[in-house]
């Protein structure tokens, strides 16, 4: 029983981080109908930002996560300005392929610049620290990341649902032309949405070096899982992305422990298929 709860907790902690990565993707997808294939690479770049800040200026990841968020915000906005802008209104595949190119570019640029070596930060405030609650062990870095994820996703939800800016985003998502008619600068909304979507994954990447090694390939799997979360949650639904992120984390952990570790991703992808066959528009989709 204790093992079960332990596995469950571990799953939930990693699930929350998946949720944060997915939330950014979800926002972009929901507003622009663009699948950002370079999302995992954003995460990787953010981890490098955090790593180098720690290495060169001795800043702890907990602090530099803000900087990483801001940096990826800029990368996101730049991506929109330079690439995505030209793909709006074209078939959805175009943006997907363009971002696929971007992913290859970013991954290899980082490899070129920072070498393929993996890098670990071992003397951070959080690294290696654990909380012992009864017989349970909770890793502090993962817990911090999860709490951070909860906060950021919460803020994002509030931003979209109860601010004027959020309403403008929603209006743009529903009908771009109509939104322009009522005086919304949709171009600016798109830039900001891409930036904010990037910032979410930037924050996630910023905190991760306290427990995960940084290397150019690190983002790929996270990116793939984020796609699954977003599609499972339903088109553009942030609560949907959050819940399915959590679900993915838990299923991954349970399947990994109770079936076999090699099957943990099979279980995650299988879960997606099962959900999507029952509800073709995702859990929260309409």
């Amino acid at each position, binding site marked *: 029983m204790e093992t079960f709860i332990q596995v469950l907790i571990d799953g939930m902690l990693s699930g929350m981080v998946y949720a944060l990565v997915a939330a950014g993707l979800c926002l972009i997808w929901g507003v622009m109908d663009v699948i950002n294939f370079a999302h995992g690479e954003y995460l990787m770049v953010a981890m490098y930002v955090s790593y180098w800040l720690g290495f060169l200026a001795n800043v702890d990841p907990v602090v530099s996560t803000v900087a990483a968020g801001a940096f990826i915000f800029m990368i996101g906005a730049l991506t929109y300005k330079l690439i995505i802008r030209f793909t709006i209104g074209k078939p959805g595949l175009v943006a997907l392929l363009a971002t696929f190119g971007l*992913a*290859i570019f970013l991954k290899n640029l980082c490899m070129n610049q920072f070498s393929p070596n993996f890098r670990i930060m071992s003397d951070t405030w959080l690294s290696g620290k654990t909380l012992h609650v009864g017989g349970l062990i909770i890793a502090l870095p993962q817990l911090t990341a999860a709490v951070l994820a909860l906060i950021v996703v919460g803020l994002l939800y509030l931003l979209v649902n109860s601010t004027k800016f959020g309403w403008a985003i929603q209006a743009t998502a529903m009908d771009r032309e109509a939104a322009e008619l009522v005086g919304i600068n949709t171009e600016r909304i798109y830039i900001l949405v891409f930036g904010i979507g990037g910032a979410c994954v930037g924050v996630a990447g910023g905190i991760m070096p306290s427990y995960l090694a940084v290397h150019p390939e690190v983002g790929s799997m996270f990116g793939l899982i984020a796609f699954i979360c977003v599609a499972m949650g339903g088109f553009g639904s942030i609560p949907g992305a959050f819940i399915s992120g959590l679900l993915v984390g838990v299923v991954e952990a349970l399947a990994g422990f109770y079936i076999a570790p090699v099957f943990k991703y099979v279980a995650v992808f299988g879960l997606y*298929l099962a959900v999507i066959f029952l509800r073709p528009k995702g859990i929260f989709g309409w």
Partner: protein
Amino acid sequence: MVGRSVELKTFSSRDIAWLAFLALLVAVPFIPAIAANSFRLHVLILILLFASMSQAWNIIGGYCGQVSFGHSVFFGIGAYGAGMAVVTYGMVPWPGIVVGMILAAVVAVIISYPCFKLSGHYFAIATFAIVEIFNRVFLVWDWVGGALGLDYPIIKEGIGNLMWHQSKVGYYYIALVIFVIIFGMVRWLEGHRFGYYMRAVREGQETAESLGVNSTAVKLIAMALSAAMAALCGSFFVQYNLRVDPPMVMSLDMSMKFVLITILGGAGTLVGPLLGASVLIPLQEYSRAIWGGLGGGVDLIIFGILIILMVVKQPDGLIGIIRDVRRWLSKKRTKEEL
């Protein structure tokens, strides 16, 4: 309008151009500059293979409009069909190829039936998930070699074993045969009722149904056909490389390559996959040959930028560029005549 004839599509002047092109391809190994340079022949073989493979994808993805990222699964099944025939059972690859093709078609129908109920990105991501599942299941499945993969023993070369060691000319002609089979089939489909139905389903499923088209059946048949052809290409791929393991044939990267080539050339057109392959494959092979050894991933950086540029600048693909240029030229001509 360029290239949009309303005449009978059973045979047109374009086909003569195709036949001439084919004659040229047949003659290629006799050109000394290529015959003496096995790397050039290698690039040509890859172009033919990937053009064929992308054309197979084009049936369902381009003509029928169902963007599947799952085709490496069928490619892989074909590869394993041939691989297991030779390595596990010590036979010639031919029965394996046939079984692989049939199996791929069956698997395609089974997995795409539920997937066709999904729309847009949901469908695309479902096919991602299927590739990942197949990849991981094959990695632990000992009967098919698991993570170890299947390695070909050194056996006699020739058409019987579909294997050549000294020269690549044999491989080249087999690739050419596959190319002719798949392109010929798609060409035939283009002028046939089924081809029109596929495009009608792509353009509007409800409209097609209102005109008496059974869209589900059209999509399933197109998928089965596409998967069987993909498996054929896969079996050639494994005969060419003499080894098969899951990351090599059943990965998202592989799937992306088929999609990328087709989109780059122009999806839903006959010549598109060939155009895409003859740009992307030399780019990939030569840039790796020239810069790969430097180790900085420079080739891939350039590759990434080029994909972005291509896709963003002309989403209709290379065929779109050609169309633009022709339109531009004809406009210029009319201006001069005035």
